[in-house]
């Protein structure tokens, strides 16, 4: 049974051999992995179940820089511009130490005042076939390696709009109904609608959506606010998956923080899998118990607790708890709840990897 077969069996509620594993690595964590395994490829070195693949938009950083200059937003010489206009500054490496991978996000559209200023920016053409030309081959490659293909469309709309506009400005746009926040949310939603259709037609197994709307102690915004501004847009994207699919494609949704208040809404719009279910703010056993009848769960190994601060036996215990849930019929994919940062001991990560590959019915 390949890792893909095992994962798809788990998501379908059929008997899986072991808990499928997914791990997101930072570069410093990859350095550590390489020193222990000789490989920088976590899919191969850790035996992951998935390969993540996204669209390849084309846009010119110079066009963005010029456009931002026209808006009065100046970039530092160290800043980088993403194809969707996001801007990150690179602080001096000596101030970051082991966390050298971190970049500081800037909000280049913070002072934009009109919708026409937004529409005139050098946005990439999300309808261009070139952006998706590689997908079919990439999916076939993943499948040949026995991996499930995950179509990456995280930061689906809200987070991208927030990164560009700034969270405070975006919220005020939506409260004041300036049209600017809606324009950004709509642009990114339509981009996602188009992209997920391409994903499905390219043979992806899973479409990965997500926008952080939770905090450590509950929702970032009131549930009615989320229902008004974000839920309908998420529903459009999920519907695009359903419209395109000819065989079942799993829709996963990521939000950090405690999002228990909107789980039923997520299921209602068609989300199949919830990630990451942070144990530090969402009691795992209770959340899984409450929603296992209509949802699969992906994550649950705490990166604010067990992974950096626990012992290998704590990691094993957390995996065993999830194995118990899976043996009892819950659909569970094992994953640290966020990226592996440089403070995670290798022994904890290797314990997670070993435990995940133990036959489910032997893991007690």
């Amino acid at each position, binding site marked *: 049974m390949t890792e893909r077969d095992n994962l798809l069996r788990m998501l379908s509620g059929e008997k899986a051999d072991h808990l499928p594993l997914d791990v997101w690595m930072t570069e410093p964590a990859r350095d550590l992995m390489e020193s222990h395994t000789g490989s920088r490829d976590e899919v191969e070195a850790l035996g992951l179940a998935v390969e993540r693949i996204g669209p390849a938009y084309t846009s010119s950083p110079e066009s963005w820089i010029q456009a931002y200059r026209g808006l009065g937003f100046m970039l530092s010489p160290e800043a980088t511009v993403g194809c969707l206009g996001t801007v990150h500054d690179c602080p001096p490496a000596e*101030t970051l*130490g082991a966390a050298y991978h971190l970049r500081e996000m800037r909000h280049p559209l913070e002072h934009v005042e009109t919708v026409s200023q937004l529409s005139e920016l050098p946005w990439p053409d999300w309808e261009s076939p070139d952006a998706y030309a590689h997908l079919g081959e990439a999916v076939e490659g993943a499948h040949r390696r026995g991996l499930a293909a995950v179509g990456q469309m995280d930061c689906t709309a809200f987070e991208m709009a927030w990164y560009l506009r700034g969270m405070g400005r975006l919220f005020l746009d939506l409260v004041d109904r300036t049209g600017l926040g809606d324009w950004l949310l709509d642009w990114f939603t339509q981009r996602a609608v188009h992209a997920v259709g391409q994903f499905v037609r390219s043979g992806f197994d899973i479409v990965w959506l997500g926008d952080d709307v939770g905090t450590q102690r509950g929702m970032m915004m*009131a549930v009615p606010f989320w229902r008004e501004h974000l839920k309908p847009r998420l529903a459009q994207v999920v519907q695009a998956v359903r419209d395109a699919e000819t065989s079942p494609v799993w829709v996963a949704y990521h939000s950090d923080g405690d999002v228990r208040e909107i789980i039923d809404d997520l299921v209602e719009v068609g989300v199949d899998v919830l990630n990451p279910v942070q144990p530090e703010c969402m009691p795992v056993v209770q959340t899984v118990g409450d929603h296992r009848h209509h949802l699969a769960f992906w994550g649950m190994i705490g990166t604010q607790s067990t992974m950096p*601060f626990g012992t290998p036996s704590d990691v094993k215990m957390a995996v065993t708890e999830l194995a118990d849930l899976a043996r009892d019929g819950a659909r569970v994919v094992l994953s640290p709840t966020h990226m592996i940062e440089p403070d995670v001991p290798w022994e904890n990560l290797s314990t997670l990897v070993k435990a995940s590959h133990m036959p489910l019915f032997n893991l007690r």
Partner: protein
Amino acid sequence: MNPLESLTDAVVRGDRREAVRLTSEQIDGGSPPKEILAALVAGMDTVGDRFQRNEAFVPEMLIAARAMTESMAVLEPLLAAQGIRPEHTAVIGTVQGDLHDIGKNLVAMMWRGAHFNVVDLGTNVAAEDFVNAAKDHGADIIGLSALLTTTMPAMRQTVQSIREAGLHAKVIVGGAPITAEFADSIGADAFAPDAATGVDIARKLVSA
């Protein structure tokens, strides 16, 4: 509802135009600036209470703070003329190695709403920069924020530097991975689980 209560209510609702109108009306009517300020602060306190109970969220805090800020722009000259200044100064920042600012910004906003003088040092702030800023501004409170577990040691280091410098300022720590136990273990004076509680704790510490 008397006019000052209406002003408080306008801040709570985030109705900035009404808040500014009522502030101007109160000034024109001869109300003591201190009472007008108290009405504005009461509005932010109400929003903070609701935030703690998960009845108000980030957007509600933002619009309330905006209503207060715009009203303060009208009120500030009178406060200054009467020598009414924030009684307490707070220095805040995200510790070295950490570039996250959302939580830190919310705390700064709520402290300003409680009429603290807030000096925001930004993100990736070295321990000595916290110490120097606290000295320069005569801080009563120092707020340290961290989102990443990797920067929790920097929080410990910063508290240690503050103690070694012999500053009288009280240290409040917060951020997603921070717990009360961790705050105790690094010698912080308090842990704030959210921005609104950060106001309650700061007030308690400066009045102790």
